[in-house]
């Protein structure tokens, strides 16, 4: 019996085991997945929690419920991968062996990387919304906050879901309007990038929306430390921004397992072939989702498109065939822009987000790079799609590769 071992039962890992169990012969391949937490979080939902749109129950499910029968679920922390022996050591002392390993250990925020961020101000005047605890704590804070200067700061790129900080600001603008206190709140976006977003056309559109909503943007700001006493953040080149409420997107890193196994780059992301998803260093290890060092966005849609390519390449790997270089960096993101509207962007390694209709050329129903009500409904419907179609590994009517059909240059 051969063994396919998957590390991590998040969005990517769950899709991988569910798809592969359907395809691989159970008499030939045993499939196991390891995760340390019983709870599966719908991470895109964290954004809505601070504003009371979602509660905790909207974003959690049992992991086991989403793993198909025939897959062994191992609940344990992972100590380290030993790629030279084809083994994985668990924190409880067990050792697992594999013929083929898939690393899907994701990314996490590490606020301890920024000096002063986790001092006395943490969860009093300083919050994150990329964790369930952080978003819930921020929801409590916002219920009674009386206004002032709200600074959203991205510590360093890359981050998971690079549009989420902008969505947070758009939703905050809407939230404070509804509470009749927008005039008491200054909204400020402090980013290390040189604009609202990296790709030029999306950056112009998003920059316009920020301006229209009276949200100040401070660019090329690389945070060095937080001064809690003076309530300001300081950049490495000695610029300062004061805050009354700081919403931080801390440094994002790969899993501690990757660091302990010495398999990652300086941020513990695993060097991965950008098109085949095979590890650059080990020829029986694939890497998928946020755990990779690829320049694609760290987002669920990207994991989904990667898994479509990975599924094919696992079969080819088993049959000893050459791997297909088919992953093109495709990402597809709904961006909430507040007041019941949203924007959709669709892009890949080579092609920046362009305007048009999606997924049906000319017909939509979604509009690319444009604010519409339908896009907002797409985002809200996506939670249902995530739990009921995406995780179970159902076929969605979307191609893994980005398409130019329906787009205008």
């Amino acid at each position: 019996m051969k063994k396919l071992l998957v590390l991590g039962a998040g969005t990517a890992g769950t899709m991988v085991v569910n798809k592969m169990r359907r395809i691989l012969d159970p008499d030939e391949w045993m499939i196991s997945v390891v995760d340390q937490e019983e709870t599966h979080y719908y991470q895109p939902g964290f954004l809505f929690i601070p504003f009371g749109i979602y509660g905790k129950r909207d974003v959690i499910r049992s992991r086991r419920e989403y793993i198909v029968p025939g897959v062994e679920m191992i609940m344990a922390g992972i100590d380290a991968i030993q790629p030279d022996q084809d083994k994985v050591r668990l924190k409880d002392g067990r050792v697992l062996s594999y013929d083929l390993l898939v690393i899907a250990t994701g990314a996490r925020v590490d606020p301890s990387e920024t000096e002063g961020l986790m001092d006395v101000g943490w969860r009093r005047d300083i919050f994150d919304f990329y964790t369930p605890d952080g978003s819930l704590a921020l929801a409590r804070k916002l219920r009674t906050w009386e206004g002032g200067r709200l600074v959203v700061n991205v510590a360093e790129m890359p981050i998971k879901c690079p549009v989420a900080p902008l969505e947070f600001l758009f939703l905050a603008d809407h939230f404070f309007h509804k509470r009749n206190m927008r005039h008491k709140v200054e909204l400020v976006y402090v980013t290390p990038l040189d604009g609202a977003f990296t790709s030029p056309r999306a950056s112009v559109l998003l920059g316009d929306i920020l301006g229209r909503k009276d949200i100040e943007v401070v660019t090329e700001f690389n945070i060095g430390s937080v001064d809690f006493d003076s309530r300001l953040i300081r950049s490495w080149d000695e610029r300062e921004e004061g805050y009354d409420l700081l919403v931080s997107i801390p440094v994002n890193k790969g899993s501690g397992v990757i660091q302990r196994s010495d398999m990652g780059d300086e941020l513990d992301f695993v060097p991965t072939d950008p098109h085949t998803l095979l590890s650059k260093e080990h020829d029986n290890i694939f890497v998928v989702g946020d755990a990779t060092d690829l320049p694609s966005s760290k987002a669920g849609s990207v994991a989904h498109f990667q898994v479509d390519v990975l599924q094919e390449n696992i079969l080819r790997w088993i049959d000893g065939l050459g791997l297909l270089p088919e992953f093109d960096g495709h990402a597809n993101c709904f961006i909430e822009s507040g007041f019941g509207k949203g924007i959709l962007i669709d892009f890949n390694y080579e092609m920046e987000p362009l305007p048009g209709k999606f997924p049906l050329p000319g017909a939509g129903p979604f509009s690319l790079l444009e604010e519409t009500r339908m896009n907002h409904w797409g985002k809200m419907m996506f939670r249902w799609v995530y739990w009921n179609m995406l995780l179970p590994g159902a076929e969605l009517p979307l191609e893994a590769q980005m398409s130019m059909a329906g787009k205008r240059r």
Partner: protein
Amino acid sequence: MPTETIAGHTIELDANGFMTDAAAWNREIALEMAARVGIELTDKHWKVIEFCRKDAKEKGVAPGLRRITKNAGVSMRDMYQLFPKGPGKLAALVSGLPKPKSCV
């Protein structure tokens, strides 16, 4: 591609002023490119430049700021003193490497 004469060599530069061919780089070019952005190169600068060149050769891309501070024996604070106004970009510029990619 525009070309410029730097330290007596004809050098091809991209739209942002970064060298397009890392192999055409030498120490005199580094000195002049640094001088143009107001930096006088010290031993510590050279330590960073040597790391950047070696790393880019191995990995095929210019190292980012965090990668430099983790591996070249200089702190983030040092980097901002050595290359004020954008240490990641300036280290690559002086090392004759393309502008480091920032991610989407």
